[in-house]
């Protein structure tokens, strides 16, 4: 059978800083008409570069395609020059691309219509009038309401999810045979991601276009892809059908990934098994298997021989590994729950819950409101207030973890910053250590700051690039005079380093010499330095690779056990929140819509938004995914300036009633500890 696209032994190099990096090192894959195939891997594995090499879009001063064939509809594309007419015909005409960053992939000075029309005129040689009609059709097809009016709008007038849909419309405009989505939904919210992927899936079904999804999200892969290629360090290490790979992964890296990812349906207390070590160095020329330093299954043969070739395991399932890993050696499950473990963890849960509710409140937030003034005009006069947080109430008990989830714009980061007094709340009380710290003057606040700390989301911007790691970690000690002399200071810094799993001898290095995961550990060490009782974790793992995320989650859990810390864990990844939290609060447009213990939230969600949110999260298990219900929300998250009347969620709510647009529901207790803000429930 001839494939639509067949890549054979593709090799691409990048020369950076004098070093040659073999970014794509002999990659082969194929895709047939109408198929959905996924290429999975973490950052740096070469999945994006492979796709871009296929259409010769890699920047050629540092990059260079040095080998292989890319056979599209029987013709080797690499035979053509990068800027030739044939390649330009293929790009956009036969192969469409959707990139990751919707904010920057559309030209801001042209209307959306103009951009689509340009593509149509170029490739299909339509007249302007015809092209415009087709453009409106396309925009409608991807689900943008009021297509006829919106076609003349500029990109900045659309939200991120809508821009991504427009990108899809553009990519599809010339009826390509193949659509490549390169991390197309990574920058989007969970519910928007679900909408976009459904659009793509429908398009594939109706037009028989092939879809190649490049991603690191195993959940998406399990839900949508038919076949998978797993990449590591520039090579394909495992390939096969989705069900084969998820039920019987053979390569240690695939196994590691599956074990390291938290799932919505795992038993509580299930320990994530991280992949040890660091991502591979692509400039390393050693002929051995690149996964060797991190592989728990390695043997003598792996040390002696070169990179193993892809060997057939069974049918279409191939793996590049010398070790024959039998299923029974693995102690995790796919498609079935380990019942004994589940029962045990249930009892532990209830004991834990009782213990926690018997403890005291350590942080309480009452009627929190936060407005930001908006200025316009030459005189910068105040025009309006951006009401980011409308009315937030919650409390955290000592030693527990409260998870705070919500999509972008819901105000969860603002809540964190108000608690940390990085903003001064407009109204409301924040009661900590017996005092209301919401309006406390900065000087009185300073000693209290020791006790509440923050872990930031971005490990790259949260460390001062001009400060050594040791100095960053030790700064709180200096500020609060916690070390009597230099010796004590050095000892404490070394202790903090060890606590977070870093070698104290690295304290004189600068942040850029550490990896993302290590930088996050430095951030954690800094937060621990002043011996706090509460730590607010603001999306601490979203910027990290999947295999590193598990390391950090385990570290946070360990520290909580050892030091008796209380966490406010803010995230948009519902699986992670479920894994680490005792209680969870869901936010939407500046209000808490549901708050309860983790079990009730995930097994018995009451608020329609919570239900939709949970259904939008893909579970990395194709067997489970097949049987799940999907609730796809209408529309987008509204702008804060146009808050819907009454219940903010009613325009998108599948079960909204008339009264929902009139009254704002308040958070009321439905059952023990379970509070919901919904008129349909209370």
């Amino acid at each position, binding site marked *: 059978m001839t494939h639509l696209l067949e890549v054979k032994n593709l090799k691409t190099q990048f020369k950076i800083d004098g070093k040659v990096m073999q970014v794509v090192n002999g990659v082969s894959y194929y895709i047939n008409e109408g198929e959905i195939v996924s290429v999975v891997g973490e950052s740096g594995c070469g999945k994006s570069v492979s796709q871009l090499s296929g259409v010769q879009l890699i920047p050629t001063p540092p990059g260079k395609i040095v080998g292989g064939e890319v056979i599209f509809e029987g013709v080797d594309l690499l035979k053509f020059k990068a800027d030739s007419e044939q390649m330009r015909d293929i790009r956009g005409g036969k192969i469409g691309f959707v990139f990751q960053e919707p904010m920057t992939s559309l030209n801001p000075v042209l209307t959306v219509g103009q951009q689509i029309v340009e593509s149509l005129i170029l490739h299909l040689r339509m007249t302007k009038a015809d092209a415009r009609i087709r453009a409106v059709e396309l925009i409608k097809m991807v689900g943008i309401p009021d297509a006829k009016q919106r076609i003349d709008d500029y990109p900045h007038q659309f939200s991120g999810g809508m821009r991504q849909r427009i990108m899809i419309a553009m990519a599809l405009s010339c009826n390509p045979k193949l659509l490549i989505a390169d991390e197309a939904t990574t920058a989007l919210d969970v519910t928007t991601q679900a909408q976009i992927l459904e659009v793509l899936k429908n398009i594939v079904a109706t037009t028989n276009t092939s879809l190649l999804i490049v991603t690191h999200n195993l959940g998406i892969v399990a839900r949508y892809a038919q076949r998978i290629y797993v990449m590591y360090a520039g090579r394909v290490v495992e390939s096969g059908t989705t069900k084969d790979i998820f039920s019987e992964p053979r390569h240690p890296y695939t196994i590691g990934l599956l074990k390291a990812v938290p799932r919505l349906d795992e038993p509580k207390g299930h320990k994530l098994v991280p992949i040890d070590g660091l991502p591979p160095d692509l400039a390393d020329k050693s002929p051995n298997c690149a996964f060797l330093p991190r592989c728990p299954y390695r043997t003598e043969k792996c040390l002696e021989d070169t990179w193993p070739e892809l060997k057939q395991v069974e049918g279409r399932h191939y793996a590049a590994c010398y070790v024959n890993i039998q299923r029974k050696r693995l102690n995790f499950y796919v498609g079935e729950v380990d019942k004994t473990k589940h029962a045990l963890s249930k009892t532990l849960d209830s004991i834990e819950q009782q213990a926690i509710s018997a403890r005291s409140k350590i942080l309480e937030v009452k009627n929190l409101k936060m407005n930001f003034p908006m200025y316009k005009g030459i005189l910068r006069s105040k025009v309006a207030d951006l009401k980011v947080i409308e009315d937030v109430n919650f409390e955290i008990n000592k030693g527990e973890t409260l998870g705070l989830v919500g999509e972008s714009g819901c105000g969860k980061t603002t809540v964190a910053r108000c608690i940390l007094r990085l903003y001064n709340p407009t109204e409301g009380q924040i009661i900590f250590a017996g005092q209301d710290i919401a309006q406390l003057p900065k000087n009185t606040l300073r000693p209290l700051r020791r006790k509440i700390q923050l872990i930031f989301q971005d490990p790259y911007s949260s460390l001062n*690039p001009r400060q050594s790691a040791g100095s960053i970690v030790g700064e709180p000690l200096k500020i609060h005079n916690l070390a009597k002399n230099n010796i004590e200071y050095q000892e404490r810094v070394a202790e903090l380093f060890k606590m977070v799993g870093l070698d104290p001898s690295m304290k004189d290095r600068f*942040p850029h010499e550490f990896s993302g995961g290590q930088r996050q550990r430095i951030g954690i060490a800094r937060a621990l330095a002043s011996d706090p009782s509460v730590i607010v974790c603001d999306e601490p793992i979203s910027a990290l690779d999947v295999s590193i995320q598990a390391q950090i989650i385990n570290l946070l859990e360990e520290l909580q056990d050892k030091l008796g810390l209380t966490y406010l864990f803010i995230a948009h990844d519902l699986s992670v929140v479920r894994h680490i939290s005792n209680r969870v609060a869901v936010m939407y447009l500046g209000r808490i819509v549901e708050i309860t213990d983790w079990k009730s939230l995930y097994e018995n969600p009451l608020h329609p938004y919570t239900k939709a949110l949970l259904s939008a999260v893909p579970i990395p298990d194709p067997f489970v995914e097949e049987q799940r219900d999907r609730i796809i929300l209408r529309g987008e998250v509204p702008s804060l300036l146009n808050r819907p009347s009454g219940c903010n969620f009613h325009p998108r709510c599948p079960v909204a009633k008339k009264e929902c647009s009139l009254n704002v529901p308040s958070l009321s207790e439905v059952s023990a500890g379970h509070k919901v803000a919904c008129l349909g429930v209370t």
Partner: protein
Amino acid sequence: MTTVTKQTNQFSSQAPSASGLWRFLRVFLGRKVVIFGTVIILGLIITAIFAPQLAPHDPYQQNLRSALQQPSEQHLLGTDQLGRDILSRIIYGARVSLTVGFVSVGIGSLLGMTLGLLSGFFGGFIDSLIMRLIDAIMAIPPLLLALALGAAMGGGLQNVMISLGIALIPGYARLMRGQVLTVKQMDYVKAGEVIGSSDFRIMLRHILPNCMSPLIVLVTLNLGVAILAEAGLSFLGLGISPPGAAWGAMVSDGYRYLLNNPLLSFAPGICIMLVVLAFNLVGDGLRDALDPRLRGTL
């Protein structure tokens, strides 16, 4: 904690922070023109420091009998209208240029950076106040300022340096303010606040070091500008008073003799040109080497 030891043993063998310096030098000295500029500046500094040793004659020694002579073995660049050796005057002139350059840029940059830092960090009323002050300074043409100061306090090098310094303040203040506004948004500044740093500490430890790169470039570029400005001012008769040797003054004095003794004006003129060019090239090289190499994400 077995995870701990595994992690640390596998720390990739990257070289320690000396690699930053190495990379900087490699990029900075990567272009031939930058090396050329650096050599010239070094030459200028050495000339200025060792002027007494290098100059073949006394620059102030007049000898009317050997006035306006062409270049000879005795006087490599000839003599001026008062019989003074041009080469020696140029060598001593380097001192004036360098002094004016460094002092005026010193005044401008220190005051400008402080104002910019305070303005950007505190915002609000202080920001408005400082920025209006800067606007006021920019509204006065530097030449006029130099003339006014000259009229009020007498001429001379000191006033040239002060007026140039004041004229340079707005450039630094605005650049610094812009940098501060950007750096203020970074998470590590917020982290500084969260751990309880005082404002002073945040400004000095977290914000200032991360704003410096473009300012260092501006300093090198301004050195060239200041030297040129001094030349202009002394051409107009402000600045150094005779018999002091300054390049601009030499160009002005030699103006009348351009036809037969062009070297009187050309020699100092070419020096001015070379030095300004050198500072510009070095400034370019610095900009390339500092930005974005040494920023956080590498």
